């Protein structure tokens, strides 16, 4: 396997996020990092991956990274374009989608997500985030959920200021009790490594480090006492092909602006 040392932490995150889509048939794609990952997956590990955007496109095959979930190319290259209510009712709630790929502003140890408001300290108003978008029902209804976000104590917090989207609630069994069809978050891919829920506790534990990253670095960037798996692996470095595909996607994306 050809590897190269010339890559960034963001690229490690993006490449591993794409790899996590190997074997998936359909992916509900959030904009930003999830869209980068899903498009990279289509150009590398999973050429047949069906990309589904909440704007109503099924099977989009964009040649460049879309800036928004409603870029014209998403519709023009799609197998089908459906009304937004149909997307949420027949396709998402209908259980047709294998993987939901989400970003997050804040995530806690049970992979619950906040994208609504953050506390900014005494005397200061709550800080406003964009809101839920499709995430609550994506996380509930997709077969499983992948998350991708940069690792920092600002993002990986001890306690969410607001639960926008339930991951695993307060532990195993919560999703089932709430009648959520999907398995919920199975991996959180960051620029430092990968966290996965411990099957016994549903708490996110460090399972893989990216090459050159230490457990201490990840702990320092996590707002709770991060546990590690019995064996912490190291992700495969990006291949030259992966990096080339990623960089080509991003360059094409920049051209459009």
């Amino acid at each position, binding site marked *: 396997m050809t590897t190269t040392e010339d890559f960034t932490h963001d690229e490690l995150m993006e490449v591993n996020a794409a790899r996590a889509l190997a074997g998936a048939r359909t992916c509900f794609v959030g904009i930003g990092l999830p869209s980068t990952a899903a498009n990279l997956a289509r150009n590398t590990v999973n050429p047949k991956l069906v990309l589904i955007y909440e704007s109503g496109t099924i099977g989009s095959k964009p040649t460049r990274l879309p800036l928004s979930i409603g870029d014209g190319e998403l519709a023009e290259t799609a197998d089908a*374009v459906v*009304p937004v*209510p149909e997307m949420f009712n027949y396709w998402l709630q209908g259980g047709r989608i294998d993987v939901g790929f989400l970003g997050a502003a804040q995530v806690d140890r049970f992979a619950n997500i906040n994208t609504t408001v953050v506390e900014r300290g005494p005397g200061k*108003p709550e800080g406003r985030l964009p809101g839920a978008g*499709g995430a609550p029902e994506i996380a*509930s209804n997709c077969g499983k959920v992948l998350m991708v976000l940069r690792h920092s104590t600002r993002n990986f917090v001890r306690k969410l200021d607001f639960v926008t989207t339930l991951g695993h609630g307060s532990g195993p069994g*919560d999703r089932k009790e709430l009648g959520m069809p999907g398995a919920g978050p199975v991996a959180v891919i960051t620029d430092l490594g990968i966290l996965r829920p411990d099957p016994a506790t549903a708490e996110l534990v460090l399972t893989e480090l990216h090459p050159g990253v230490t457990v201490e670095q990840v702990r320092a960037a996590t707002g709770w006492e991060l546990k590690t798996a019995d064996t912490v692996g190291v992700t495969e470095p990006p291949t030259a092909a992966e990096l080339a595909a990623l960089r080509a996607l991003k360059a094409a994306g920049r051209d*459009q602006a």
Partner: protein
Amino acid sequence: MADIRSLHDAVADLVHDGDTLAMEGFTHLIPYAAAHEIIRQDITDLTLARMTPDVIYDQLIGAGLVKKLIFSWGGNPGVGSLHRFRDAVENGWPRPLELDEHSHAGMANRYVAGASRLPFAVLRGYRGSDLATRTDTVSSVTCPFTGEELAAVAALNPDVTVIHAQQADRDGNVQLWGLTGVQKEAALAAGRVLVTVEEIVDELTPRPGGVVLPTWVIDACAVVPGGAHPSYASGYTVRDNAFYQAWDPIARDRDAFTQWLDTNVRTEGAAVR
């Protein structure tokens, strides 16, 4: 029946102070020109509804015309925050902004209920989310067959819905295509409907993915080529991504925003005739 009118007259007649107003378009076909006309006419105390408020509502909010926002995702798509929206929520500038906040699935179904003239819609949603604690338009119903408890969302029936479409014919029948989002539902849920269009054609040719709204569900059409800028009208214009990116520094600063509005919207020359 839809009269073909000037944008000025259509807005003046159909959009009133205090209205609940939906201006839909999921990234595509966002009716910016109509929003600017509303700003020029200083129509105020609006309750705005929209799944993705976008820059269009950042402008209306910053202009001080909005008292309440009904929405599910308020960002500048692909760029970042809506700074005017944040400033209103966080600091009450230029006026406090009340929120009725949902998920996309909930908002879409609120419009579906509205278009269906039902008082509510049912979905398997909001589970485990704090969203329902901050709104009185999410409740629950129990399935009479299975006993399952499901989310109920209140119908959303705007006083007036404004959308942008590619074409109308001379009778005021409208066709839009490409990403058609939730526009049909938003239009059919409303008490009054205004459609701005890229052009009037002699005959509407059925298009793949085309949504046709017959003239008898529309109150007025106004011809506004480019009326979706900086969003786009598939087949006519392309999305001005550079504008969305340029909007970030403009909207971050109250003075820069106000100046932008004065120069680009609140001038006689900016009006569509």
